């Protein structure tokens, strides 16, 4: 990011303005929130619950690439690796949520929680109805601690889908929030980073370089797929009545083709144990400059399954 340091002050507003400039039929940027930034759908749908996703400005496509038809109604970001301001969240909520209320959906980090929780209070004072849903899917961190101490990774993609579909069907805010919480509670994501030269695998690295919890030398692709599936299943323990969805997210230095070959191995390893409802592969959240993947499992009962049908096209990915 050194080369872009001169834009650091207003990096995210400039980013969102350019997104709206490049695809004006899809997006619109809200002005005056610098150094935070707000991206909205071009054609708002105010007669239903609004889903607002937020977090530190990063490299995408998550967060703003998930704003669009069938997905979130707005994205609010702070400067790179910094939570958005409560004020920007409040302005987005005021602009969108006066009729049917807003769902504030975000990954569980302290700054994000503080600012969303403050925005929640400010919006309620204005008579806007608010629910918050936090994602805590990162199984590599806060090991041995309660689940609510974990941070969030790209498992939030499924929660966005469920919440957006529930909102699209016109469900009331409490119901949209209940379904989103149900999905968030049945998620687990494992980060698998690889040094391909040395065949060295690290499981569980956090995205601010927090160390992983398990290292393997001389790892093979198939062996790594087996171990990844094993670790995830042990964490999330799917019940008999649940169908399991898998999301394979390639990190930045991983090639397109490698990620599909790895995903094939993960699918094969998984299906030795139980059937897989669906697997998706893409670059959904490319925040780490390393070779590797995050692999997410979502366990969906019949009710949640109903909200996950079909496929969605985001900016540069299919989900």
């Amino acid at each position: 990011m050194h080369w872009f340091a001169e834009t650091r002050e207003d990096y995210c507003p400039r980013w969102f303005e350019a997104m709206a400039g490049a695809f004006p039929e899809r997006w619109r940027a809200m002005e005056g929130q610098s150094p935070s930034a707000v991206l909205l759908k071009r054609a708002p749908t105010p007669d239903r619950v609004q889903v607002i996703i937020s977090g530190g400005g990063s490299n995408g496509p998550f967060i703003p690439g998930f704003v669009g038809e069938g997905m979130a109604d707005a994205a609010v970001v702070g400067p790179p690796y910094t939570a958005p301001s409560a004020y920007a969240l409040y302005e987005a909520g005021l602009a969108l949520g006066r009729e049917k209320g807003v769902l504030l959906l975000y990954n569980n980090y302290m700054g994000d929680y503080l600012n969303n929780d403050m925005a929640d209070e400010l919006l309620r004072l204005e008579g806007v109805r608010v629910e918050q849903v936090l994602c805590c899917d990162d199984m590599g961190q806060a090991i041995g601690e309660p689940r609510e101490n974990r941070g969030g990774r790209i498992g939030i993609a499924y929660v966005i889908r469920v919440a957006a579909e529930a909102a699209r069907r016109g469900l009331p805010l409490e119901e949209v929030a209940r379904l989103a919480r149900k999905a968030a509670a049945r998620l687990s994501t494992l980060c698998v980073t690889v040094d391909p030269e040395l065949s060295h695998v690290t499981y569980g690295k956090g995205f601010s370089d927090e160390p992983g919890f398990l290292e393997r030398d001389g790892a093979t692709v198939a062996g790594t797929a087996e171990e990844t599936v094993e670790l995830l299943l042990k964490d999330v323990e799917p019940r008999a009545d649940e169908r399991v969805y898998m999301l394979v997210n390639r990190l930045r230095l991983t090639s397109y083709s490698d990620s599909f070959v790895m995903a094939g191995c993960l699918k094969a390893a998984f299906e030795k144990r139980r059937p897989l409802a669906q697997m998706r592969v893409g670059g959904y959240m490319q925040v780490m400059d390393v070779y590797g993947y995050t692999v997410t499992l979502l366990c969906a009962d019949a009710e949640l399954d109903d909200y996950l049908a079909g496929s969605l096209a985001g900016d540069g990915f299919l989900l």
Partner: protein
Amino acid sequence: MNRADSSALRAAMLAAADDIIAAEPELTRIDMVIGDGDHGIGMKTGFTALRRMLLENEYPTPYALFHACGLCLVKSMGGSSGVLFGTLLIGGLEAIEGLDSLGGREMCAFLAGGIDAVVRRGRAKPGYKTMVDALLPAKARMEAALTQTDDVGRVLAAAEAGALEGVEATKDMLPRLGRSRGFRETALGWPDPGAVSVSVLLGGLRRGLDGE
């Protein structure tokens, strides 16, 4: 000063803003040792914006005044300090809805509501060396003062005294939350800068109401 209306409270907030701005070098000096050094500048930024807003506006009620002040801090400060000092001014608004002026009892209910909201939102426990360690003794001293008086100035003086006791106590605490956790050893002997800011804010409010 038995009760304070919105114009008296506006003067008190202006005095508090002046005191926070004046305390910036001291807050920065402390935070350079035990934190990342940005607390003083952040507070100065927020309260400079607050001062400007107050000079340009009048407020019909205490509720409107404190709501605008809280929003201004959240908007101008950013980071966790903006949220937490905004919470302090907004979390207790319910207690003063519809009132034209505040006596000691209403001031206490308003500040106690804000303090409870900061404790809930900030997830800091007593003894973690945070602003909570100044806020909780301030609340306790205010509530004790109410058995003697309903004078708003005396209740604020009690809050300030409690906060100053809390600041002293934070000198012997080891940080448990946030970035200053990384400065555990050197933090001994120094007060928490957030706690100091609380005492300066309450002191400024008391001074402004007294017309000092």
